Structure formats: C-alpha cells, structure tokens
C-alpha cells in the first residue's frame, strides 16, 4: 500500500515537473520565427516530406493527426494537431527541428535544409494529397526475365469509358525482404505509361532465385505483387557444415582427433602394458608355488 502511495506521489511529481519543463517557453529568435518555407506547397514536396517524416519523426511523434506518439515524459507533440500548427510559424518549426531540445534531437547534421522544409510542407499540406483517388485506376506489372526488368503501368478509364494509360504517375518498386520491403526503383511512368527498373544482379532472391516484387502506386492506393524466379540465387555459406575448432564435437577437425587419439592412445597403450606386467608378477608367484 505504501509502495503504491509512493509510486503515485512520484508520478504526480514527475508530471508536475514535466509540465513545468514543457511550460518553459522554447525561446526562438525573431529572425528565425519569421522565416518562411522556400519550398512550394505542392504534392511532390509534401510527399518528400512524408518520407522524411516516416524515417525520422514518426518513431516519437506517431502518425500525423493520430495522436499516437510515444509515451514519453514530457510527451511528444502530435504535429498534425491544429493547436501545434496554429501556434508555430514555419520558421519556428524549422528552428525546433534544427536545434532540438531535451529529448528532441537536433536534425541539423542529419537532414538537409530542404529535407526539413519538406517535412514542414508535409505538415502544412496534411492529407490533402490523398483526397482525389481515381477509382478506375488499375496497376499492372510485367516481369521480364530476359533483361531482368520489372515494368509497371497504371491504366484508368477516360470519359468515354475507354482504357488509357496514365503518364507521369508515381510508382515504387521494391523487393520483399524478411523484415520489410527494399526499394529497388522509384519514378514516374513515362510517355508510354510504364515505369520499369532492372533488378540489380547483386541483389539476391532466395536460394532458388525466387523473390516477391511489390509495386506500389501510393497516389492511387494501389499495390500489386508478382513472384519471380529469375533473381540471382542467394548463396548461403553454412559455416557449421565444415570441420572447425569452434564447431560441435561432431565437427571436430581430423587433425585434432588424430593428435588427441594419437598422443593419449600411445601413452595409455604403455600404461596398460605396464599394468599387465605388474599382474605378471602375481602370476609368476603362483607358478613358482
């Protein structure tokens, strides 16, 4: 009971302290405050910002607007909240990312100026980019073993209901790895409505050369997979298959067995011979009687 009481009072204290720390104003020089985002607030910048956000900010701040940030003390801010966005100018957000404070790291050395501004572009744009999803869009993949290429295209229907290929659509092609997907190519569909990449020769599939290729067209909320069997087969070098000093006793090198058995064996042969000789003393005595 006393323990619980202590815990509670400690938590309350901590909370008070946390609010105190939080309440301390993050002093930002006026010159910094008034800076504006040099990047245009367009879909491309917002998307770039989204990627930077996913890799660098999400682990603490959670998804924008979802308030699913890490339970830290003091708690990280939900960067999608209206409160945050209205209370901070672009310059202020930029300054905070640049310098860091307390548990918030400084991204000055980690992210370029452009990358930091892109995050702000993303925060300002919110989810607007996803507002228009083409319901007729259809993603298709062609995997060509001859030149080891993967080609993706998106079709949609025009006003007349005729199928047309989309030009300039964003596509990301990746290969499935055990804990996640590894991007092998990213770009826009060309004039013929296709985006293609070559699977690098040195990027292995499984031991049989099989691999799963994933193609994503995020703007169209489309994802397709294709299995290929012409990736470079991965080579597994099973170290435990060979004899070694560090291996199990079943994998002992022959020379160490030879040494051990040879040395110990020859000594023990002599010992056994001597023991037999000693027993012979007794035998001789009996014979004599």
């Amino acid at each position, binding site marked *: 009971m006393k323990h619980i009481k202590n815990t509670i009072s400690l938590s309350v204290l901590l909370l008070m302290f946390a609010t105190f720390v939080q309440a301390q104003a993050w002093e930002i020089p006026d010159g910094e405050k008034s800076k504006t985002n040099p990047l245009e607030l367009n879909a491309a910048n917002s998307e770039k910002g989204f990627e930077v956000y996913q890799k660098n900010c999400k682990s603490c701040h959670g998804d924008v607007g979802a308030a699913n940030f890490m339970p830290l003390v003091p708690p990280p801010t939900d960067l999608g909240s209206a409160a945050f966005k209205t209370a901070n100018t672009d310059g202020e957000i930029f300054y905070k990312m640049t310098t860091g404070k307390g548990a918030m790291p400084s991204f000055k050395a980690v992210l370029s100026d452009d990358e930091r501004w892109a995050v702000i572009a993303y925060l300002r744009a919110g989810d607007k980019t996803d507002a228009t999803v083409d319901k007729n869009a259809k993603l298709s993949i062609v995997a060509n073993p001859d030149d080891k290429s993967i080609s993706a295209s998106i079709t949609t229907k025009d006003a007349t209901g005729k199928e047309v290929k989309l030009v300039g659509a964003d596509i990301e092609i990746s290969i499935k790895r055990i804990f996640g997907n590894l991007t092998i190519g990213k770009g826009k569909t060309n004039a013929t409505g296709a985006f293609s990449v070559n699977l690098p020769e040195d990027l292995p599939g499984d031991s049989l050369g099989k691999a799963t290729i994933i193609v994503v067209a995020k703007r169209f909320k489309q994802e397709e997979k294709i299995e290929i069997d012409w990736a470079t087969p991965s080579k597994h070098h099973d170290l435990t298959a060979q004899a070694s000093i560090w291996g199990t006793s079943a994998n002992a090198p022959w020379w160490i067995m030879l040494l051990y058995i040879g040395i110990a064996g020859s000594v023990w042969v002599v*010992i056994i011979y001597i023991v037999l000789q000693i027993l012979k003393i007794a035998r001789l*005595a009996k014979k004599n009687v």
Partner: protein
Amino acid sequence: MNHEALPKEESKQLFEKIQTDLFAPLSKHYGFTAWIVVLATVLITAAMAYFIQLRDGLGVTAMRDIVSWGLYISTFVFFVAVSLVGMLISAVLGLLKIPGITPITRIAELIAIAFVMMAGAIIVFDMGRPDRLLNVFLHGRIQSPIVWDITVITTYIVISLLLLILPLIPDMAIMRNRFKDAPKWQVMIYKILSLGFAGLPEQKKIIYKSMRTLSILIIPVAFGIHTVTSWLFAMTLRVGWDSTIFGPYFVAGAFPAGVGAMAIALFVFRNSYNLKEYITEKHFDLVGKLLVLTSLLYLYFNLNEFLVPGYKMKTADGHHLEMLFVGKYALLFWFVQIFGLILPIVLLLFKKMRKPFPMLIIGVFVVIGAFLKRFIIVAPTLEHPFLPVQNVPEHFMVYWPNGFEWAITMGAISIALLILTILAKVIPIMPVWEIALEKGVREEELEEAYKNN
C-alpha cells in the same frame, strides 16, 4: 647401484636397523593425532562452506561476471604446479643416475599424487553445476582444452600411482613376512599389494624394467599437464594470457613450486619421523641447488613474459602491466618476484643457506610465492577486459576472494595434506629394499626377507 657387499653379520644387523627405522613411523605416532585434528577441523569448516555453496550457488563467492575465475582456479594451477616434483625427482634425477636420491623419491611421488588429485577435485568445487559433471564424459568436446586437461591429469595420476606402487611391491613383501602378527586386515592388504612377490629374478626384472619405462613416460606427460593447464589461459584472447610462451612458462614455474614443497616435506619428515640418518644434509644441499637451477629458469621466462610486452606497452597490455607493476597488484607482484624468486636464488648460492632449517624457510617463501603468483596470473587479467566494465555493481569490478573461497581452498589443501599424511603413515616413507641395497645389505638377506612362506 649395488655397493660393495658388507660382511654377512654386519649386513644382517644393518638390514634389521634399516627396517626398524623405516617401519617405526607406522606404529609410533608423534603428534599424529594433533595434526589430524587440525586438518579435520579445517576440513569440516570447508565442508560447511561447500555445502552452503552447493545450496545457494557460486554467488556466495566473490566471483562475478567480470572476474569469473578466481581463487579456485588459481589454486588448481598451483596444485598442478606442485605435483610436478614427482616427475622431476623420480624420473629426471633417477634417469640421470644422480647418486643418493633413493630416500627422497617416494616423498616426491606422494606429494605429486596428493596434489594432482586435489587439482582435479578443486575444478569440481569451481563448477556452477557439479551435478552435471558426467556431461564432460557424455558430451566431451575434443576441441576443448578442458577435455585435454582432464585426460592428461587422469593419465598423470595413473602413472604417478604406478610409480608409487611398483617400488612398493618388494616393500610389501618384506612387510607381509615381517608383520605376521598384525591385525588380519593389515596382513591382508600387505598380501594383496605384494602381489605374491618372492624375489624371483623374473619378478625383479619386471619391476626394474617397468619403473624405467614409467620414468621415461612420465616426462612428456608431466610436460603435458603443465602445458595443457597453461592452455586453459593461453587459448583465449585475453591480455596477459594470450602468450605463445605460456606452456614452457608454466612448466618452468612448476619446477620451483614443486621443489619448494619438497624442501618443506623433507624437513618435516626428517624431524617427525626421526630420519636424520637417511634424509641427510646432502639431500637438502641437492634440493637447494635444484631450487636455484629451476628458479633461474623460471626467472628467465618471467623476463620474457613481462619485459617483452612491457617494452612495447600495447594499449591493453599496457593497462594490464601497469596494474601489476605499479597498480593495485604491485605489492603482490613484487613480493612474488622478490621473495619467491630472486631472493631464494641469491640466498641459495651460499652453502650455509642449503642447510635443513634455512631450506625450510626458503621453501615456505617459494611455495607461498608460487601460490600468489598463480593468483596474479588469473585474477588481474579478468579484471581488465578489452571493453569497459559498466552498468554493473561496484563489487563486480574488483575481486578479492571471500571467506567461502578461502575456506574451501584451505579445505582442498588440507585434503591434499591428509592424503599425504595417511599414505606416509601406512606405507614406509622410503623404499626399504632400495635403501638396503644402496647401503650395502647383501642380496641374499633381501631374498630371505622376500620369501613367500
């Protein structure tokens, strides 16, 4: 080594006197009980300590994750070192035909057997799971130096036992015939151990030949036991152990340790068994010279082991050596080097110092030095790993053995001494027949004594 045979009557008297002198300790017990009580007290304390260690785990010792080998392992190395004396005296000196060593060969064998047996035992005291000892035999891994060590220790014990038993056979035959009135079980033991030896020429030939073979065989095995023991350390990558000369360094270090123990044992047996006529000042002189010779060899290896890395002071080596030379282990290190090695060499150059009493004192210093030396081979290295020791309690970072470890170690030493005491009580401390022959007792006198009737 037959001397000029004495006249018949004289020979008979001499043989009788030798027998009386050498068999006397078997029935007379000067201070024997007191000595046993002392050993038993230590043993009981150790047994209680070990019981608690078994019940609560190795956590009762001062060892922790950083220094995970401590006093037990260093005592193990010390025991192995002391046991080398058996090989040195009975094999090397015997084969070299150094005159007059017969009276001290059996003492050397007894020391060897008692200590090498306890070396095996103390490893078990150090195990976290002694209940799984059988795993070593069920799942033994031939690449592990521990498996080699177990093999070579077992082999050394067996060869030493055989080297003890062989020259004992004629003695047992003499005792079988002499002590017919002894209690039945005693007579029985003499009978069995004498193997019906009756002094037949073929029997004698077997004994001589087997002893010679074993004397040769024990030399490589003894080198093996010290070399393999050194490999328990040298086969790791640790600073202070990762050394190519560790094998010969350990062999060389074992010589003075064993000879020092020999000096002490000679003094004790000479006085308590009243054997001044047999263990003479000449023997102390010989042992003293041996100690100088072996210590010089060890000094040479020490020079190599410390001067070479000390000259270069590589990062990790440097920290280790600083700790030994001027740091927290400096006192121990310099005590060992000066009182356990350099001073004995200098003092023993003087003939006066090779007399019994000075030899006892020097022997004690050499043995204590040898014991501490093993400790500073084991602990300082572990105390200083390659990566910093952090986020563990303060007592993980330093090591000094606690009461449990001292009690159990003392217990192991007292068991070794107990084995030595009891063996020296039930069998003559010297090979009676060899002494008799050496002193000129006529062959037929011995033939008569062997006769199985």
